[in-house]
């Protein structure tokens, strides 16, 4: 039967080995694959300013980006492709709550420059290689709501 010291060895050994593998995989991902998949060379000052705006207004508190955030408002990774620049700019600069189908967004009333930064950020996000996310709907052609 397992003794207490063997159990401790299992815990410490398992933890250390798992953590080392995790660190190795993380190192490889971050040094090599992530810059390539995210087109790190395209992180312009506008994109970075856009990310600041994204965070300082807690957009993730309603929306998701890369599928992460809250589930009250649409996923925005591919929003530029889906809605186009004019629509997105209108939603961002609106002085009254943007409320498609009655669900309200905070009326941020961003300036044109701020909206441009956020659009740059969302455009950059839309071009990141996300291993196939978001998946294309299988039966889109049967749907009439686009």
């Amino acid at each position, binding site marked *: 039967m397992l003794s207490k010291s063997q159990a401790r060895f299992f815990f410490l050994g398992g933890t250390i080995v798992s953590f080392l593998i995790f660190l190795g995989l993380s190192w490889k*991902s971050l040094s090599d694959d*992530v810059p390539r998949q995210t087109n790190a060379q395209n992180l312009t000052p506008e994109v970075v300013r856009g990310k600041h705006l994204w965070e300082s207004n807690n957009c993730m508190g309603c929306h998701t980006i890369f599928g992460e955030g809250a589930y009250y408002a649409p996923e925005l990774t591919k929003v530029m492709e889906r809605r186009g620049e004019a629509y997105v700019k209108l939603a961002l600069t609106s002085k009254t709550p943007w409320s498609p189908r009655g669900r309200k967004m905070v009326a941020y009333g961003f300036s044109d420059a701020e909206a441009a930064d956020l659009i740059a950020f969302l455009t950059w996000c839309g071009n990141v290689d996300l291993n196939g996310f978001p998946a294309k709907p299988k039966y889109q052609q049967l749907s009439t709501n686009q």
Partner: protein
Amino acid sequence: MKYKSQQVAYWFFALSMLLLALQIIYGFIMGFAHMGYDGLHNFIPFNTARAVHTNLLVVWLLSGFMGAAYYIIPEEAEQELVSVKLAYVQLVSLAVVGVVAIVGYHFNYWEGRKFLEIPRPLDYLVVVNVLLFLGLILATLFKGKKRTTTSLVLSMGLLFAALLYLPGMIWFDNQTMDSFFRWWVVHLWVEGVWELIMGGILAFLLIKITGVDREVIEKWLYVIVGLTFISGILGTGHHYYYIGTPRIWLMIGGVFSALEPLAFLGMALFAVAMYRKGEKKHPNKVALNWTLGTAIMSFVGAGLLGVAHTIPQVNLYTHGTLVTAMHGHLAFWGAYAMINLAIISYTLPNLTGRKLYDTGNGALAFWLSNIGMLGMTVAFGVAGVAQVYMERIMGVEFGIVQQEIQVHFAILIACATMFTAGICIYMYEFVKYGRPSEEAMLNS
């Protein structure tokens, strides 16, 4: 209660109760908003309610863990806490940081990164606060006569939780990198070191309640926390499927996430086996309910519902939908809320000297809150699965889908009302116990 300084725990638990009440209120605000009743939008928009709801959860759980540590460590180490005064300083500063953060969220003052919304200047205060807490706990432990496995596992969990907060404070220009390290905090907390804390508290409770030999309980504690780390550390991969990280994580995350329920299953079997093996039947039935309950519900919520959602092929469609909210609610409730309510139920009679061991209210609180939470989980699940099929598979527009699934939020709110009734009774009992007293020490 054997040591006077253990009384500090009571006030941490009281803070927990207060914050839990507020958390529930903000949950209702969001539930109603999902149904289309967003009358508070101008004052408390959804993103504010959301940040408050999740951050209050984290702070009340941490406050409970800290209270548990202040109770358990002196008893295990056979040593009074090194400074009671500093422990109160730590309590007040924790409450102040929490309140300032939450008020700030109502004025667009935050750092909108899911779960880590606390703005940077307050992050430093959190660090100071946690260092003070750890200093007190570790100093007591090392000054003490005994260093038991239970107290070491608990302290190790608390120490690593503090260390893992740091990667979340680094700024990255790249959203993918940002997210990558955010999960080092969030995932490695809840599916790693918090389970050490939970395991430590659970072992303490089982030793006290079942009377099974400490050596046996602590041996299995090692096995369970070992399984937790082996599956949980590489299981972080399930957050790296679709955020701009390489495909290797689909395999690593998929395999190790599938192992994660084993740790929780181990915990559930362990608790039930120790209960059956125990010859001593502790009269505190309420604490026993919560102790066995947390072991079983964490297996269902965190283990089973977790793995159902982290199979990569499934997650491609469920990622970023209400399915996540389904898993999140039962996982946090089963694993971390219930372990806190268990340790509170166990310690209150010892702290206050009033032995309300087997009250009807105690049982009612347990069953109402658990059945309510299960109902909420089902409502979230139905809404989430419907959303996945309509939006992700059929390609119906987000807003239309949200209108279609509104009805499930009515069920959610009904179940949440039941849950809240249970919690209210729990809090009523908490208040009825009264304050900690010196007599309680003489009695034990």
